[in-house]
């Protein structure tokens, strides 16, 4: 644009066809934008990881749970998780629970609240330290998983988890979800919906909570300073449960 100003100042005869130049530059920028935009949108969610790509530690997945927004009677996150992962509604103490609502009552103030509790996807997971076969492992992008192919079912990780996040499968299972294999004799816990994340989607619990209008669960990339979760963590006070253990959890809580 400064070219045009310069041109009008020097010579009127030398004026180029600015309309065409303008049109070309605008349309090429628009075209470039159109090409990049879908990738940018996915990038926001999955940092450009297509299903066939390898995960990297450039990304660290996490969740921020707002205790102030979490409603005491609501179990939508639990129901969504169970449906997504093929878990039966728990009735016995041997049934697996990947996420649960915990009802809290402060001993001093007697204030009552509830919040969802699941695997905290620690940076220094005790379950990974104690697993004899390295079945319990932390993926490059921060998700703590159980490799059921090599899990021998010793339950040491269940003993080691500070959050009681792990469950042992006590009985024969059938009709598992295709994306969520589960079997008798292995240990399991919240996978942060890894099968959904790898496709660029969000976790089932976060989705259900937004659908219910509470918006208490926010999922995103903790390593990306521009993600919604990073921005929120910078603006509000949030804490990790049992932060005294120094595990640097990926799941943080606001309002407790």
């Amino acid at each position, binding site marked *: 644009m400064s070219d045009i100003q310069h041109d009008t100042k020097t010579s009127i005869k030398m004026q180029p066809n600015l309309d065409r130049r303008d049109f070309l530059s605008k349309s090429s920028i628009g075209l470039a934008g159109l090409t990049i935009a879908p990738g940018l949108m996915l990038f926001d969610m999955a940092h450009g990881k297509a299903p066939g790509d390898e995960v990297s530690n450039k990304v660290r997945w996490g969740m921020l749970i707002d205790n102030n927004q979490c409603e005491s009677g609501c179990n939508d996150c639990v129901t969504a998780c169970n449906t997504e992962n093929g878990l039966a509604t728990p009735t016995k*103490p041997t049934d697996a629970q990947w996420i649960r609502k915990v009802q809290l009552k402060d001993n001093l103030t007697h204030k009552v609240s509830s919040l969802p509790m699941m695997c905290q996807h620690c940076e220094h997971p005790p379950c990974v330290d104690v697993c004899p076969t390295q079945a319990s492992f932390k993926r490059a992008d921060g998700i703590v998983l159980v490799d059921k192919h090599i899990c021998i079912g010793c339950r040491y990780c269940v003993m080691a988890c500070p959050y009681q996040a792990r469950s042992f499968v006590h009985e024969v299972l059938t009709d598992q979800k295709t994306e969520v294999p589960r079997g008798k004799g292995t240990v399991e816990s919240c996978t942060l919906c890894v099968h959904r994340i790898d496709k660029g989607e969000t976790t089932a619990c976060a989705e259900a909570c937004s659908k219910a209008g509470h918006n208490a669960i926010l999922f995103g990339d903790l390593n990306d300073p521009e993600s919604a979760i990073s921005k929120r963590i910078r603006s509000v006070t949030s804490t990790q449960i049992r932060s005294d253990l120094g595990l640097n959890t990926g799941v943080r809580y606001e309002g407790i």
Partner: protein
Amino acid sequence: MSSASLSRNESRNFYILAALGVFVVFLGYLGMHQMEEHGHIVSGMNNQIVWGLPHVFAIFMIVAASGVLNVGSIGTVFGQAPYKIRTPLAAVIAVGLLSGGLAVLMLDLGRPDRIIVAATHFNPTSVFAWNIFLYSGFFGLAIVYLWTSMEKRMYVWSKPAGFAMFAWRVILTSGTGLIFAFLVVRQAYASALLPPMFIVLSFAWGMAVFLLVQAAMFAWNCKTIDPAILRRMKNLLGLFVISSLYLVAAYHMTNLYFAKQTGFELFILRDGGIYPQLFWGGYVILGSLVPLALLYLPGVGNKSVVAASALVIVGSFALLYVFIIGGQAYPLSIFPGHEVSSSFGDGAIGKYVPSLPELLLGSGGLAIAYLITLIGTRVLNTMPQDVTVVAAKNDA
């Protein structure tokens, strides 16, 4: 067993005893099969109490295996002649106990068919992975130890083998304590006292098992143990029982001083129902104080030693039940300063009722230890020949 000729009666009795052992092993197989076929749903375990009765049996056997070898170590490492001649017997019992304990542990896994995976994938930070090496090494060293103690031309190697065995045992038993000590979040376990506590417990339990087997062997051979040697051994058992009591007391007393641990301690020591009953009645009174009375009050003969040893073993099961299952029953403190409840047992005491398959599996492990000891002592010359030791002493 004895170098005397085998009478028909003796042979028949041996086969009856062996058959009994095989029968109990078979029962153990039945229990294991139930769990493998249907999953742990047939056991009393759940997602709050994931280690149940089989672990109580297994850890007793593994700790006692290490402790039984101590009898041999006192001879080889500390140069005490009456103990040195008991090394072969100790080694045989140790191999039996470790086999039984490992069998129970491995068969209680959710996927026992994946033992090969455990043996080929190692996590360097996991005590369970270390144990694969430590337990295999224990077997190998025990057999070497046995060999150097029984083969004349290998006697010269028995001291190095004994030292190696002693060191290996200390590491292995500390490892058993570390399994629990590394569980930082569990109020029952995160304590540096546990490795030494398990070492001392191993001395006591190993000596008790040894005294029982020894009494059985001498009775079978219609011999009596030299009173002086028996007195030394029973005094040692008493010393180990007192030391164990001391460490258990130290563990609980230090715990009581931590405000955050008080809830757990009161649960175990006073409010927890079955757990305080087993701790005080089972371990402290039946398993420690009564045996001490039997061992130290005047008029102790052979029978008192046997009764005391048996009671120490009963007490050990009680202590392990409280330690392993009581330790899991008490809820984790995830939200300190809050009262919590959930569908997953948060804030609630875990419920556990031992089931028949678990009891059968554990008993099967004991039967394996029994069978190996029975056959090993029959096949090998493990009977302690006290006559030579006493004679040598009298000559000196």
